[in-house]
């Protein structure tokens, strides 16, 4: 039995300790906003926060998350995340949408660290998040839009 705190709720389930957090979140907690894209920390689709720091949940075993605060896309509530989601909407960023939870988790983390990121900051922070529909120009623009609306 593993107990985790996900989006401020305690939840326990029967999984092996080596189970990646991603699969516990998806298959046990039934929170399906966090996506599987590669399983090797190469694409960013599975990005969540562990104690408010963005991590790739596909390579993080559940054991490493015990006693920590897990936040998924469903648990976003910061003003930065709201600004990001509004900007996503304004610019119609998503295409297929499959990468977008991960993009939004990363973009929100970026804005928390950097109030007004420039293109280089954005590229450096976001290059771990693949978008096969190539929505990158809109992601860049939406991050700047969100930053502008936060001041």
């Amino acid at each position: 039995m593993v107990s985790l705190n996900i989006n401020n709720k305690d939840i326990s389930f029967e999984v092996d300790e080596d189970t990646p957090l991603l699969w516990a979140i998806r298959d046990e907690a039934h929170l399906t906003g966090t996506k599987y894209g590669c399983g090797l920390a190469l694409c960013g689709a599975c990005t969540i926060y562990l104690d408010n720091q963005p991590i790739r949940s596909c390579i993080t075993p559940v054991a490493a998350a015990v006693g920590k605060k897990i936040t998924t896309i469903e648990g976003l509530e910061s003003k930065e995340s709201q600004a990001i989601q509004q900007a996503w909407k304004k610019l119609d960023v998503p295409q297929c949408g499959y990468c977008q939870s991960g993009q939004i988790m990363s973009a929100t983390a970026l804005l928390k660290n950097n109030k007004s990121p420039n293109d280089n900051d954005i590229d450096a922070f976001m290059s771990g998040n693949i978008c096969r529909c190539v929505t990158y120009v809109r992601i860049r623009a939406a991050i700047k839009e969100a930053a502008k609306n936060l001041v």
Partner: protein
Amino acid sequence: MPQSELINLSRRNFLKAGVVSGTGLTLGIYFGSSLAEELTSGPGHASAELANQAQLEPNAFVRIGTDNSVTIIAKHIEFGQGTHTGLPTIVAEELDAAWDQIKVESAPADASRYNNLHWGPYQGTGGSSAIANSYEQLRNAGATARAMLINAAAKLWEVSPESILIQQGVVLHKESNRSLKFGELAELASKEKIPEKVTLKSPNDYVYIGKQAARTDTASKSNGTAIFTQDIQFPDMLTAVVAHPPRFGAKLKSFDATNAKKVAGVKDIFAIPSGVAVLAKNFWSAKKARDALEIQWDESNSFTKSSQDILNEYKTLAKKPGATAYSNGSVDEAFKQANETISASYEFPFLAHATMEPMNCVIQLNNDSCELWYGSQTQSGDQFAVAQTLGLAPEKVKINTLFAGGSFGRRANPTGDYVVEAANIAKASKLSTPIKLVWTREDDTLAGYYRPLNYHELKAAVDATGTITAWQHRIVGQSILTGTAFEEMLVKDGIDSTSVEGAANLPYSIPNMHVDLHSPTLPVPIQWWRSVGHTHTALSTEVFLDEIAHKVGKDPVELRRELLKKHPRHLGVLNLAAEKANWGSSLGKNRGRGIAVHKSFNSYVAEVAEVTVNENRTFSVDKVTIAVDCGIAINPDVIRAQMEGGMGYGLCATLSSAITLKDGYVEQSNFNGYQVLRMNQMPEVEVHIVESNENPTGVGEPGTPPIAPAVINAIAAVTGKFHHTMPLPNKLA
């Protein structure tokens, strides 16, 4: 719950709140056990009609509820290209609905109502045809509903239909100052006769088409609530993963599941035609058990060649003429007379589609039917393939089309590969519980169905004035369509039209032309990949033209203008892109521009790439200016998004991606080996849409072909050297 969560599933209220909930959003979707039963009634089916008698459902595409909702039934899958926005835009236009009352629902698999009008009696999405084949159909669908609402109101108010107006979802009689919402009229209107003929709007009166309508799927795709196949969950569902053979043509010899069965959560392990399937209570258990399997493969009949072997064979083949795809004038004569002969060859690797969501499928067997939930792109083909696998009639295969996390052609598999695999698992399991087949990224990358490896040779004759007098183009590559349902329609006299599209119909005025084709067969499964043949023909023709321009000292835009006099729409995008990109102005040291123009899927696209070549020979693509003529622009922002994304998808193949075989083994299995475009490589993009009142044409694919030649031409503008092998090296020669 926002309406968009439901759009892919059913209008019935079967979604239950997730088991965990947090910040006010509904978290996770968990289906109740009666789901399968509830879902047996698709739009327009009898039981659904009984449950919703009051609504207006004048045709297979529109339903107006007493709750004032206007539901558009989308016969085309939404996998990013914007059909769930573009299709409703057309209906809303003729209906004069308000945009915020629009809902979208995926059509069931039923080719009698939902066939692609460009494909005959076949339901499916592809060839950038969704809007093009739906335009008239959905205008009529919207106008029919509109007429019925007006007729109902006219009777109710005892006024003439002509005196009634509809604006933004409100039916109005101005003289008497009366108005009703659609929902208030739905029941009455459902009793009206369906008009045989309706009047369509004049494009001058459009309020949505050509304007900006917000995407219907952005909200759910920005908060994690959009449901993809991977997200489908039933209480008793099992997850399947499959161990596939290591090389194409290899077969299962035997397997030992002793250790695999010890993994907690494993339910069953058995052989299926495509490998060894593991069924478990969740993905991780299934994957762990698969890793613990000991499998002996029979590789005696497997394909053992390397990419280099294939290329060498293709080069040998190219020494001989192939089947003629196009011929005009006398090429041989022109070469004899030539002042100068220019030649070049181009090499293209296999490419994987690498959709963000790997292939997957949920299936449930019932007594004499089955039901599937997944991102179905070719419902008719899949229905048939699953029916064959299970020994059912095709209409007993019920498909619920979900959002797909990208396709780029992959999900329109001619054999229904992963869907059939799911059916085989369900069949072998003998279970009636739902089973979700999940492919890992590795399964997806290694599965084949690649864009074929291609080899092109081009030769041109130029006279003393620098005019091109002959053009000879030889293409060597596997035929995609041979052996598929499209063979009869599109393979003629040994020419697969998708092998030579964009080459055999080269628009340039050249008096003597010859295009021929070799279509060798290989056991490597191949498939259409975003823009299909144009992925290679646009590159070879547009780079080669620049190589000629370079040799004869002509400006690449000027040369194209000379050769395109009879092609105003090509010229239109060429000139627009050149003008917007300030063609001819200096970009400074180490920087240059390249252009390419290409028609595909009846749309015309020109792209200008700006590159910087650094001292150490690395380079960057800084900006791309795109001009597109796709007829009337239904939804300009969706078109812009498709140009950005389509160009980016092509740029990815230009800069990064290749599938290579070594002794028959695919050398890439995940994003570490199969490199894709990342944010730091993404140029600034500008999109310009040509104003037009022509019928709408495709936008999903046409943005892809021109970028590779534009980049190669831009690099050559700086370095004087044209690159011939894809993808480009990190450091230029």
